[in-house]
């Protein structure tokens, strides 16, 4: 096993990785930009290296600086997390050239699966069903128009290098196509440095279900079951769960999807952890979407249900160990659901809301897992993804997991930046959600009929009472000379004087 590993990421995933390293007695090296000097990951890691100014193009995406930091600190391997350089084949190659282990699949597999169009070709060859569309990047407006006519509207424009919904546009009619094409290409160019886009037939009200795969460098490859990630806003997942509620009515679906995923992975020479994404239509037909050649944001739900530590396995596999798990060793116990806590305003179209965390009190208790990258006083930078934390709950049944997650959300106090915590409580309370009737258009329909819950007069009275008495206390305090010592003992003495 490795002695020292560099974590080439930030935020909650950097914390997750540093924790895994600590548990395995591996020295961790965090990296940070100017804005992240005080981050939780830097403070929890054994060592930390500055890699540049705040913009990620000058820090977290700078291959040579990260490699230089790894060499300076003597790290034998680099874990890229998700996002940033995690699916960058050039980075994986550069690591190899420097004799540093890139914790992930071989660069060849990243390359063949990283382009969505190449991945679709691979899936076709492997016999895995795909959504009808262009097999390769669009050459321009003319091809887009003729293909869209052939497929029939609505269609979906997607970035070849894409992920996370960037560069993706739904197009309902031809008059919208040209503008959508321009926007998608521009967004793709900004996000991935590659403005190639392709076109797919839109599957109406699909479920998004993905298969976690895990393989070693000795030819062993298994799947760890599915995650359903149908609750999305702007094509980005916000709630993920395992098992998918669909499995209750289609008991053979997990194994069929698992085998389809493994076929694609084998064809690409895959190793380490990865995720094969599928769309599932109303009749439970599944279509290959793409492969994410990295650890997923939502990996905790799989960990909670299978009892496996995916990051530990990534590290073991990266160090050349054999995957000792066989497919028949994998079992799925109970149900786990995760909410992505974002600094964004669900009341205003999920606009990002950077700022300072004024107050934070995190939930805990039985069956609750929190992967967080924030703390009270932290300034959430506007330069990065607005993901603050992931809150997951496990229960013996889906219903128990939902109730536990709601309990944890109700305990979660996060003030100072707008966030989606109370919004999740509304979503979890929806009868459709409880019944497992999910699709990627769930949130659109939810917003169309949303009526905000009224907490009731008791809660209003409690809030008003607190504000009145706090204001009164401030008036009295302000009229006294400021102690300014910061000492709790002195402050409490001062408060005694006010009584």
């Amino acid at each position, binding site marked *: 096993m490795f002695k020292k590993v560099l974590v080439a990421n930030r935020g909650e995933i950097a914390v997750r990785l540093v924790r895994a390293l600590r548990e395995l007695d591996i020295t961790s090296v965090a990296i940070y930009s100017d804005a992240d000097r005080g981050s939780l990951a830097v403070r929890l890691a054994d060592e930390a290296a500055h890699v540049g100014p705040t913009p990620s193009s000058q820090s977290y995406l700078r291959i040579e600086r990260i490699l230089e930091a790894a060499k300076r600190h003597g790290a034998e391997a680099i874990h890229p997390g998700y996002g940033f350089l995690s699916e960058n084949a050039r980075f994986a190659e550069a690591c190899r050239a420097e004799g540093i282990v890139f914790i992930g699949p071989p660069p060849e597999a990243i390359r063949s699966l990283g382009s969505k169009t190449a991945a679709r070709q691979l899936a076709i060859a492997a016999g895995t069903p795909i959504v009808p569309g262009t097999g390769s990047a669009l050459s321009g407006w003319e091809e887009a128009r003729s293909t869209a006519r052939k497929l029939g509207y609505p269609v979906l424009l997607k970035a070849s290098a894409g992920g996370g919904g960037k560069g993706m546009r739904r197009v309902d009619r031809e008059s919208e196509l040209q503008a959508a094409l321009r926007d998608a290409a521009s967004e793709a160019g900004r996000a991935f440095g590659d403005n190639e886009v392709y076109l797919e037939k839109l599957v109406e009200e699909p479920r998004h279900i993905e298969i976690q795969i895990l393989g070693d460098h000795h030819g062993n490859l298994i799947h760890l079951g599915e995650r359903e990630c149908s609750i999305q806003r702007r094509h980005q997942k916000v709630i993920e769960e395992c098992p998918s509620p669909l499995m209750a009515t289609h008991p053979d679906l997990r194994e069929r999807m698992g085998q389809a995923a493994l076929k694609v992975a084998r064809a690409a020479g895959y190793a380490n952890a990865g995720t094969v994404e599928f769309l599932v239509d109303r009749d439970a037909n599944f279509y290959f979407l793409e492969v994410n050649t990295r650890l997923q944001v939502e990996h905790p739900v799989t960990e909670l249900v299978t009892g496996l530590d995916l990051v530990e396995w990534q590290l073991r596999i990266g160090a050349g160990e054999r995957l000792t798990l066989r497919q028949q060793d994998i079992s799925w116990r109970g149900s786990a659901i995760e909410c992505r806590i974002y600094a964004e305003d669900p009341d205003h179209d999920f606009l990002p809301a950077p700022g300072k965390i004024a107050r934070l009190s995190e939930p805990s208790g039985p069956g609750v897992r929190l992967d967080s990258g924030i703390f009270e006083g932290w300034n959430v930078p*506007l330069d990065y993804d607005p993901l603050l934390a992931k809150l997951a709950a496990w229960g013996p049944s889906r219903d128990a997991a939902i109730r536990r997650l709601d309990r944890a*959300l109700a305990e979660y106090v996060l003030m100072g930046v707008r966030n989606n915590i109370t919004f999740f409580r509304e979503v979890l309370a929806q009868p459709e959600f409880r019944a497992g009737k999910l699709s990627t258009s769930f949130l659109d329909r939810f917003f169309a009929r949303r009526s905000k819950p009224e907490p009731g007069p008791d809660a209003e009275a409690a809030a008003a009472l607190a504000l009145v008495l*706090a204001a009164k206390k401030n008036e009295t305090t302000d009229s006294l000379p400021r102690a300014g010592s910061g000492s709790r003992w002195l402050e409490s003495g001062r408060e005694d004087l006010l009584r």
Partner: protein
Amino acid sequence: MKRQVTANGRSGQIEIAGSRVRYAREDGVEIESGYSMLQTGPTEFSILLDGRSYRVNAGEGGQVWVNGSLLTVEVFDPRDLRPGGHGSATQGRQQVTALMPGKVIRVLVAAGDPVEEGQGLIVVEAMKMQNEMKSPKSGRVAEVRARPDATVAAGEVLVVIE
């Protein structure tokens, strides 16, 4: 002690006397109970209303968190009440402000341009998300204050439409 209350857009009144509190809303809903309050943090309070427990966190801009729900609550002394509200937006000129802090990545109009309601004016990006600011009305661009690549704060005026 009496205070006017606005809670989630509804007005009411709170009256505190000794260890009792009465809260009456304009819609007729009313509660009265004994209370106990303890400050448990700089902005956090524990309140018991006849033994029912409420955890309250007071945030910025009237946002108050109570037992896992968010409310917009304001209290004010009726003696401080000023007649009339805030000045309403002028009919002729309307300011388009940034909804979020971010960076201006595209300016789509210039001063003097005629614009339609809903037409894109400026594209602001924050946290990898692009947000197109649209014209609130049809008219003419009176002023463009935003510059490409400039960092803007939430509420900052980007364009003025008349």
